[in-house]
């Protein structure tokens, strides 16, 4: 897991080069226990200022062969640079460290103040103004992300709507646990696929939990690991999936906003004009995808790969996605 001793030295050396020879690394603390990437918080105390920073690092500094389609840390850092240049609020990247160096494969970015926990953002009084502004902020941020020229983006997987259905259906069939509601969702999605939109840079996991929200609204967009070239409606609908409304189902956009306002803000900020009916197809796909992911996590228990009670219990969340799918099916045509 790393106690920080192996990275404190190279971080201090980087701090000396970047902030001056007298600077010190303080408060180095591991934040996530995630298996895919290490995330550390630390401060650099320089002679005239204190810098709050985050280190994202491959486990042990060495990138493992990935089973998922997550992008590399270098790609993630490049995406943060490109989106920042386009005016999207993201943490500023200060340093990218190559594999084989003392720090290993990693990058350093500024720590943005604010909250990421969905339940707090949707409940606490301190975010009451933020909740009003968040729908428009998200529409503008998504329009900004989707407008970034894709030609300069290297190493990004390409995955449009039908690619995703194919991928998740193959995973679902491989698990050998057929469920009628999920069958209906796969069949319906295939029979009703919309014409593909022009492919754009898609964040891939744009939802509460991956957004830093401060008292004034959206502070920064985090977690670019699932970025890909895809359909812009995927990002818009993923923000609407009921799993990410944290109990506030009545507000379709993330538990805080209404879809027409999001679509208006998106179009006003230069995005394409999408209809609520188009978003239905993608939200059904989003709920289906999350249901299959819960089944995958349970399957890690079933196969013995991860014998934790948490992995076993997550299999009993698939029915949440099933009721969401049924509610969506019942609502089809309400926009007509």
């Amino acid at each position, binding site marked *: 897991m790393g106690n920080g001793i192996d990275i404190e030295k190279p971080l201090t050396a980087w701090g000396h080069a970047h902030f001056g020879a007298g600077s010190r690394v303080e408060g180095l603390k591991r934040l996530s226990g995630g298996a895919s990437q290490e995330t550390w918080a630390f401060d650099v105390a320089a002679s005239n200022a204190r810098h709050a920073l985050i280190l994202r690092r491959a486990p042990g500094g060495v990138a493992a062969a990935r089973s998922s389609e997550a992008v590399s840390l270098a790609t993630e850092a490049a995406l943060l640079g490109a989106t920042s240049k386009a005016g999207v609020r993201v943490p500023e990247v200060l340093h990218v460290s190559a594999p084989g160096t003392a720090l290993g494969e990693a990058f350093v970015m500024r720590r943005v103040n604010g909250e990421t926990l969905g339940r707090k953002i949707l409940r606490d009084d301190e975010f009451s103004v933020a909740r009003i502004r968040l729908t428009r902020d998200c529409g503008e941020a998504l329009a900004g992300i989707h407008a970034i020229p894709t030609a300069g983006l290297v190493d990004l997987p390409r995955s449009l709507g039908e690619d995703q259905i194919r991928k998740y259906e193959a995973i679902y069939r491989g698990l050998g646990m057929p469920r009628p509601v999920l069958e209906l969702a796969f069949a319906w999605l295939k029979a009703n696929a919309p014409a593909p939109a022009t492919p754009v840079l898609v964040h891939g996991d744009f939802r509460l939990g991956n957004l830093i929200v401060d008292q004034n609204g959206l502070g920064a967009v985090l977690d670019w690991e699932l970025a890909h070239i895809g359909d812009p409606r995927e990002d818009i609908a993923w923000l609407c999936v*009921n799993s990410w409304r944290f109990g506030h189902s*009545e507000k379709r956009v993330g538990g805080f906003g209404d879809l027409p306002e999001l679509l208006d803000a998106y179009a006003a900020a230069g995005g394409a004009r999408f209809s609520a009916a188009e978003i239905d197809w993608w939200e059904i796909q989003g709920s289906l995808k999350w249901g299959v992911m819960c089944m995958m996590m349970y399957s890690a228990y079933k196969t013995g790969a991860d014998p*934790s009670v948490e992995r076993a219990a997550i299999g009993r969340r698939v029915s*949440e996605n099933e009721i969401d799918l049924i509610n969506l099916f019942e609502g089809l045509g309400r926009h007509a």
Partner: protein
Amino acid sequence: MHDGPSAEELIEAVKAFIDKTAAPQLTGHAAFHARVASNALATVLRELAIRPIAEAREKERLEALLGVTGDSAGALNSQLCEAIRSGSMDLSTAGLLAHLKSTTIAQLSVDQPGYSGLRSADTGNGLI
């Protein structure tokens, strides 16, 4: 076979041990997993209470929908999956969505009775 203590009583006793004795002494990841473990036992208690009647009704609906009798609910569900996958049943099939909704509502009242989507579901058909 004896019923003193019953399966329910044993599960309740273990759950009370986790909640009142073990969990307060744990921190961090272990405390989180203790909470998940307690919730899993609550799920089992709900399943013991709800599943027999819910599965019997599910089987009746499946028999009506598929026009067959005699198989287990599990076997009938496999047939339903195949019918949907092959396209012989879809959203326009009379009774299909209503059946899936009743089954999912029953499943959720075992799995996650507090889930927001369950409150959103129009339960006016009284089929649970």
